[in-house]
Structures are given as C-alpha cells and as structure tokens.
C-alpha cells in the first residue's frame, strides 16, 4: 500500500482520538493510565507512522497534483 502525504496527515489525525480514548479503555479494566501515557503513546504512534511513510512513500512526483 502506497501512502500519500494527505493519507499521512489523516492517519496522524486519527491517532489522536485513539490515544485519548486509550485511557478510557484501560480504565474499563481498572487500570488508570496517567496523562503522560497518552503523550508517550502518541509519540510512539507518530514514530511508527513516520517509519511506515518513509518505507512506503509515493515517489515525490506523484504527490505534486
């Protein structure tokens, strides 16, 4: 799967609700994650997306139009 720059932007945006709701999800099981865990999760997620993007990016010319 090729990832366009626009696709990257949307993927990053989607990571934010996931990161926020992660605490809610864990709290269902009685685990209270601190707020920093959201930040850490988000950072790891961004790293992952960045790596995926650099591996799969479309050639530069394709993102011009």
């Amino acid at each position: 799967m090729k990832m366009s720059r626009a696709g990257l932007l949307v993927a990053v945006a989607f990571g934010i609700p996931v990161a926020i709701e992660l605490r809610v999800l864990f709290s269902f099981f009685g685990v209270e994650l601190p707020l920093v865990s959201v930040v850490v999760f988000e950072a790891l997620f961004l790293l992952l997306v960045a790596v995926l993007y650099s591996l799969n990016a479309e050639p530069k010319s394709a993102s011009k139009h």
Partner: protein
Amino acid sequence: MATFVDRYPEEASVVKATLVVSFLSLGIGALFGLVQALHRTGYLRFLDSVDYYTILTGHGVLLALVFTIFFLMGLFTWAVVQSLERPLPDIRLSWAWVGLTTTGATFAAVAILAGLIPSIDMSADVLYTFYAPLMAHPLFYVGLAMFIVGTWLAGADWFLAYREWRAENPDERIPLQTFMVLTTMLMWYLATLGVAVSTVFFLIPWSFGWVETVNPLLTRTLFWFFGHPVVYFWLMPAYLMWYTVLPKLAGGRLFSDPLARVVFVLFLLLSTPVGIHHQYLDPGIAEGFKFIAMTNTMFLLLPSLLTAFTVVASMEHGARQRGGEGYVSWLGSLPWRDPAFTGMALAGVMFAAGGFSGMINAGMNINYLIHNTLWVPGHFHLTVGTAVALTMMAGSYWLVPQLTGKRLYSRPIGLLQVVVWFVGMVLMSNAMHRGGLAGIPRRTAEPQYQNFDFSMALGTVGEIRAGIAIGGTLLFVSVVLFLVNILLSAFEEPIENPVDDSLPEPLSGASGSPVVLDNLRLWTAIAVVLVILAYTLPLAGIVGDAGLLGDVPGVPVWVSANAEATLDLLTEVIA
C-alpha cells in the same frame, strides 16, 4: 456550457447570496465560540460573565440557525436547478425569500448583539431555545418569524420548479436530489408550525405587552415540536451531499437510489413526533408521552444506520474503482488529497460518534445522568457542529467553484483546514462529554462552584478545561482557514471547468425503486397523523393545566436600567 454559473447565472447569484450570509454568520459565531471556550475554562476572560449569555445566544443562533439554514437554502436551490435541469420559475420570488430571510436574521442578530452595548436598551439573551418566561426584545421574535416565513417561500419556489418540470415530464421519477429537497421541505412545513404558532400567537404579543402572561410549558413544547425536526433540517443537506456528491468524490457511484429515498421518507415520517424527548425532565408532561417519544426516537436510528451502510458501501465501491484492495487497505486508495472528500469523510466518522452519545441522550432513564450537563454540547458539536458544519465547509470546496467559475485558491490549505477541525473537535467534544459525566453544567460562565469539587471518574477537571480551550482554539483557527481560502478564491481568474461537476448514476437506479416512494401526498398524510397522535393529548394536558396564555408574567432581559424590577419579577415567577 461549462459549469453551473454559465448555465444558470441568475440562480448562481441567489446561491452565492445565501452562502455569503451563511459564511459571515459562521465567522462571527466561531469567534463567539472561542470566547466561550476560553471564558468558561478560565483561560482568558475579557467579558463580564453576565455578557456570556449574549455571546452564547449569538453563538447558538448564528451557527445553529443562520449558518446552517442559509447554507441549506443555497444548496437546495443548486440541487433543484441542476437535478431538474431547468432554471427557477421566477427569479423575483427567489430574491424575495433571500431578502426576507436575510432581513429576519439581521433583526434577530441586531437584537442579540445590542445586548453588548449598555447604552442601547435592547437585548435578547434568551439563548437559541428562547424559553419563556425569559423575554427578549420584540425585534428578536419578529426577526425569527420573518426568517421562518422566508424559508416557507423558499420551499414554495422549489415546489413550483418541480411542478413545472412535472408538467413536462409526467411519467418520470423525481430526480433524486429534488426528491430529497421536497421531502425535507414537507417535514419543515410540518415542523415549523410549532414554532410559528408559538412565536406569532404567544411570544410576539407577550413581548410587545399586548398580553400579560405566557404558558412557558406550552411555548417550550411548541419549541421542541420544531426543535427536534430542525436537527434533521440541518442534517438533510449533509445527507444530500453524502448520498449524491461524496460517492462521486470517492471515485465511485451511489450504491442505491431506492434506499436513499426510503431514508428521506422515514425522516419525513419520524422527525416530528419525537420532540418530547427533549423534555424528559419537564414536569407537566405525563411519563407515558415521554415513553412514546423515546420509542419513536429509537426508530429514527434506522434511517441513520441505513445511511451509514449506503455511504460506506459507496465509498468502498469508489476505492475499489480506484484500484483499492483488501478488507481494510482499500481505505488507502481513497482520494484523501481532496479536501471536499476528506472533510465529508471525517464528518461522517464523527457523526457515528455523535450517534452513540445521542442514544444516551434519547434513553429516558440514562438521560437523567447527563441532562443539562456539558455532555449535551459535547454531543451536538459532533452532530450539527461537525457532521453538518464540516460537511458544509468541505462541500463548499466543490460547490463554490461551480457558482463562481473560479478554482479553489488552495487545496492543501483546505485539507489542513478539515483535519484541524477534526482534531480540534476530538479534543473539545471528548472533554465536554467527560466533563458532563462528572456533572459539569452547560450554559454557564462560572462552572467552578465554590466549596465544591467535581469528582472525575478518570483524569482531572483541569485536563477537561484544557481540552475545551485547546480544542476550541483549533476549531476557530480552522474556520479562519476556511474563510480565507474561500475569500481568496474570489480573486482567482474565471476558467472553463473549475471543478469536475458531473454526478454519475447510482449503481442501483431509480427504476428499481417502488413507485409508491414518490407519492409525496401519502407520506405527508401519514406524517400528519403521527404528529396528531403524538401531540394532541400532551398539548391538551398542558393547555388544560394552565390555559393557553398561562399565568407567568415574563422576565424581560433587556430592562438593564431597571434591574430591581426584574429581580422582583424573578422572585414572583419563582414563587
């Protein structure tokens, strides 16, 4: 014959006029939203907390009523003209309703904003629900009445266009977009009866002082008679775009025309007899009627679930046409670079989330948990504030070039704008929902009570405040980006084909849908019967209890010079 403006220049001017009013309101309303978000969280306060209600009324009226409905009027005009492929019957009628609605909206806005200027003895801080006995300056109600009559004329304009078309095409199916416009307007005529009666017969005479008293429960019930269906009046333009434009932007075709018609008919039938679900906590309405309203409301989930299915199916079809494969990875083949597509898709995702919190609101028993808390604005900023507002902004990136013949100034800025909206709304609405669960009230400038701490199930109140303030700021930035982009587009050179405006045929077309779906008289009759069943007894009970005109004197919000008298009145009302 290039695009809409070349084929129908006069109609394009009408649409542009409504969009100008719409976007102007969006800008002012968003500024007020920012002020509220920063004020009630304590980050930035430059207004007196008393003026908060002026701002909040302006925000609610300008965004929920003016921005959305003016956009609707423009979109519906475009949809009728381009789907019937003929100009409007009489352009003077069109300008008449543009003039009337604009004047009405201006009156209401002036009455509200005058509240910020102490030297003018006029104010309308009654919030967009204008519950009696809070009394606004008469100009507010008069403006409101003109606005509503204007929308009726607009509907008449579209029905006349349809009649002319029908005379020449006696045996054809109603084109899908026109069908959507007509069913929506039939619902609107039925629904606005409530607010029209309330405004013309009770609130206007009372605010002028011709009658002394009002029956607050009656006017409130009449408000919600209109107040629930109005949410579908906001939503149907978004649905129209999701059904007829989004599949095309995705690179495919609408999955099913008959299903789309079924959905619009269901909304016509079920939108109005449910308004009492906003009054679960009102004394004076028997529990049984509230239960009926709840049941009808749950049925309303059906057309929304049908829509989710059809729209996602159409998008998947589009993605596969573009070479998408797999169970999930087809998502990557969607045209994310196109702000019109991305904005509408993100709006749809947020609508799903709003639907879930809406089910909580709709349940008679769990409603008590969140009633009048911040949860409620959290919910409707996902629905009208995003599903509708973001779809309208995103749709503009595709629609406005057809009206001006000029290309959009910048697609990357457009893309950034819709993504910033998404992120801002995630932060703001998540915080509002969570704050509401902790019991933080809505509609107050001072939610931080003394000697009282809200107990959060998770996280802290400070975090909630930050979420609202940061989210609100991002949303405001997003609106600025949108308006600047549209404004700069006006200075582009006109070109032949500013945007690909063709709309492909549905996969399963109109010929497959039962003819009875187009029988608008039948559906209207059933809708009327359902409304009579749902409302006759509750209204009779309310009038029987306190009389048509009630016995409550009213609390004018504009007699600032005479605050003492107002206080006296207030104690009298409470007693």
